[in-house]
């Protein structure tokens, strides 16, 4: 029953997407604009189909309908309720179903937001693009990634999801957040395609999608941080970022998306960089598809890669299509995209944004190259090689430091041109903050040039951000905290926290493997750990062997080894004593069969790890503040004068100029 219902939902969503495409194409090609309103009905049908399919799958999981192949291979009667719900996105087919649901959600949101402008060809083209993306994803679920396959004979129980995916609550939040980010970039992409197709390549489409991009970016950022946190809490090696191909796949669109959020301001202000911004939007969207390809096709070894199937080639084909369409459209509109503006001085806000964009693009290039290089080499000469953590750390460090520096300087730079004196005055206190950070770090015993530079530039950047927010709140009261610039400064603070925590925790790790008898203590990185004893406990879905370990004579922590019925070997589950200064990370490597024997423990002491997660929260807060409408200014005409056909490239009518998201 669940399978039939879900299947029906997928078919409905797929057919409605096709119907939507047909309607919009007919309306746009025959000029019958009123027909465009009908697109809304198809949007409702797509959403309805997606919701039905999603609900059917959740119902199948919750009611343990083992006649569904997906439930039989990934669900189990022993899985606790929360992980049962999260099982939907613990494997290939289900995660594409979640993708489809979120895509349908964005489609509804766009249609609702632009409900009064459905007859505008710009909105029509955007909906057409989104319908096309929907067609692809629901088509996948009709074919190779069908989540609703059934079994002739239903088993009595299933194995449950991968053990690593069912012992931390973050698993319930990391994938949906990440997908809200990934899928959200469909919206700016759709409007970019629409702007190119209609020839309205001025600043209108940017203003329309500004807030959508910000939302997608914020969700992606939070999703990435949650993923890092999950990996820290679960994987037991004490790290949170391994430059794993699939982590890179989520990081790539983040890099290009971040570049876009900055360069968009240059276009709004100066009417420049049109081609560049369109390229960044298209690159961001196509990188989300490429990331999905890398994750879902099993082409790269990774803990995330689910399986190999025909989904891979289809995703790769779709990626190629997206890139071709984007390049083709930008090339076709090349003449209109030329912008008349020029940048007066490299020492200006727009100059800093340009440098920022080059640095982000180089960063993305390094990550992309490092990720796919082994594939390329293998396909060229059959040689197998690896590109790992040491490579990424070394190559991205200078770019990261450069970005921190720009982040500190740019907020103090005026538009157009800065004099040395302006800079010297405005940057004085931020620079002292940075110097203070270096002096403090050295006084506390931090050594090494790279981490010290990171602390110094972090202090500098934080000082610049605080200065901007302080000036703005002094001028405008609480309104000085909202709006894009000020919210952006809060985001900068979050990024500084993450950068400093990253530099500190990766540079000053103390790690020991110790063997302890009951009652015995060891000293690691200034902390004492005492092994008290071992207990065994049976949970619904697993059996735990729990070591009781006292840290610094205080609280007792419980690193454990977990045996799941579907796992061949025991899985470690670390336990972490977290504090603002440092984390004591305990992973149980070996536990005695009988009570009273010795255990082998991995103890890792890392400073400032907690601030990574705090930084993620600050980024989310800052994004929310940035999305909140700042003080209304009198509408200004976009700075760019159109090059060709001035009459058609006028900014959109007054209604269009409303900031997106302010209903």
């Amino acid at each position: 029953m669940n399978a039939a219902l879900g299947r029906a939902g997928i078919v409905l969503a797929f057919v409605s997407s096709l119907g939507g495409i047909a309607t919009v194409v007919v309306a746009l090609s025959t000029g019958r604009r009123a027909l465009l309103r009908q697109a809304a009905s198809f949007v409702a049908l797509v959403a309805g189909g997606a919701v039905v399919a999603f609900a059917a799958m959740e119902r199948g999981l919750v009611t343990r309908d083992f006649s569904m192949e997906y439930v039989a291979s990934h669900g189990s009667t022993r899985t606790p309720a929360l992980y049962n719900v999260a099982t939907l996105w613990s494997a290939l087919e289900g995660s594409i179903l979640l993708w489809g649901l979120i895509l349908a959600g964005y489609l509804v949101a766009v249609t609702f937001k632009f409900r009064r402008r459905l007859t505008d060809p710009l909105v029509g083209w955007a909906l057409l693009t989104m319908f096309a993306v929907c067609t692809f994803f629901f088509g996948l679920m009709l074919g190779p990634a069908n989540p609703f396959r059934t079994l002739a004979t239903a088993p009595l129980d299933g194995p449950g999801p991968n053990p690593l995916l069912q012992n931390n609550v973050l698993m319930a939040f990391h994938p949906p957040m990440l997908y809200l980010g990934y899928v959200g970039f469909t919206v700016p992409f759709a409007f970019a395609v629409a702007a190119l197709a209609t020839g309205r390549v001025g600043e209108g489409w940017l203003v329309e999608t500004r807030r959508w991009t910000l939302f997608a970016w914020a969700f992606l950022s939070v999703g990435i941080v949650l993923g890092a946190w999950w990996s820290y809490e679960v994987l037991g090696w004490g790290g949170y970022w391994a430059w794993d191909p699939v982590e890179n796949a989520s990081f790539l669109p983040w890099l290009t998306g971040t570049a876009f959020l900055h360069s968009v301001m240059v276009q709004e202000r100066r009417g420049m960089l049109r081609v560049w911004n369109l390229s960044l939007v298209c690159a961001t969207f196509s990188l989300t598809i490429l990331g999905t390809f890398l994750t879902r096709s099993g082409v790269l070894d990774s803990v995330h890669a689910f399986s190999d199937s025909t989904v891979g080639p289809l995703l790769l084909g779709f990626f190629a299509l997206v890139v071709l369409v984007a390049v083709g459209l930008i090339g076709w509109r090349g003449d209109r995209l030329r912008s008349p503006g020029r940048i007066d001085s490299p020492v200006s806000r727009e100059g800093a944004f340009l440098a920022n964009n080059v640095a982000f693009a180089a960063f993305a290039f390094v990550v992309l190259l490092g990720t796919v290089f082994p594939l390329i080499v293998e396909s060229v000469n059959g040689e197998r090689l690896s590109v790992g953590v040491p490579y990424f750390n070394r190559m991205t460090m200078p770019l990261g430091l450069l970005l921190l520096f720009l982040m500190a300087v740019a907020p103090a730079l005026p538009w157009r041109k800065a004099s040395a004196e302006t800079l010297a005055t405005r940057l004085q206190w931020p620079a002292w903050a940075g110097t203070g950070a270096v002096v403090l770090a050295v006084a506390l015993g931090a050594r090494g040039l790279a981490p010290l530079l990171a602390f110094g530039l972090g202090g500098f950047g934080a000082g610049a951000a605080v200065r901007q927010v302080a000036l703005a709140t002094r001028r405008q009261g609480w309104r000085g905290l909202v709006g894009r610039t000020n919210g952006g400064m809060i985001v900068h603070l979050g990024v500084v926290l993450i950068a400093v925590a990253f530099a500190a925790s990766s540079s000053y790790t103390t790690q020991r493997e110790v063997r302890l008898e009951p009652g015995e203590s060891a000293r690691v990185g200034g902390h004492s750990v005492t092994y008290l004893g071992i207990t065994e406990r049976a949970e619904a879905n697993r059996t735990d062997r729990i070591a009781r370990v006292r840290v610094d004579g205080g609280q007792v922590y419980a690193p454990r080894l977990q045996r799941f019925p579907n796992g061949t070997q025991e899985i470690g589950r670390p336990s972490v004593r977290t504090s603002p200064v440092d984390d004591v990370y305990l992973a149980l490597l070996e536990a005695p069969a009988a009570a009273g024997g010795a255990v082998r423990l991995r103890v890792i002491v890392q400073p400032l790890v907690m601030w990574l997660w705090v930084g993620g929260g600050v980024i989310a807060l800052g994004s929310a503040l940035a999305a909140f409408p700042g003080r209304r200014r009198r509408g200004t005409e976009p700075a760019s004068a159109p090059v060709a056909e001035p009459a058609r490239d006028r900014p959109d009518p007054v209604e269009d100029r409303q900031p997106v998201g302010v209903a």
Partner: protein
Amino acid sequence: MASPPVAARRAPGKGPRLGPWMSSWLVMAVVLVVALALGSRTVGGGSDQDRVRAVASTIKCPQCAGQSAASSDAPTAEAIRRDIADRLAKGQSPDRIRDFYASRYGEGILLNPARSGPAGLVWVLPVVAAVLAFAGLGFAFRRWQQAAPAELSAEDRRLVAAARRARLSVGEPDGEPVDPHGEGDGR
């Protein structure tokens, strides 16, 4: 990182005031150089376990999905760590140990690709790309600076003057512009 004192906001453009901030920057430069010089002196190497971990983190665990021999708990990774410890104890250098593993398992076991041969491209390409990109940016700035600014007509000036008047009239009561620092407030 406290909020900047009023002195820092003093309007720029007054020549004689060069003094205070110049000396502040000089003091800062001295403090910074001293602190960095003190801080970048490397201290002696860590314990045996640290040295093993440093080598193991550049070697891939052959059995695991993309993890290094330092971070994996798989039996193979543990065996590799023990072997590295033995070899270090015998006085072998990290590079020699890596060469041994590469000869036994192939280049693919090294997480740092070789600097030479086709694998070297992965090191060279980003540097070349970054240099080209920043050079291109510098070139663009030069071109923009050489391009003559657009001629202003009387009509343009009148428009600007009208816009400025309108802007000032919505400013604060004392007639100060809304945004004296020209820093924008995130429209």
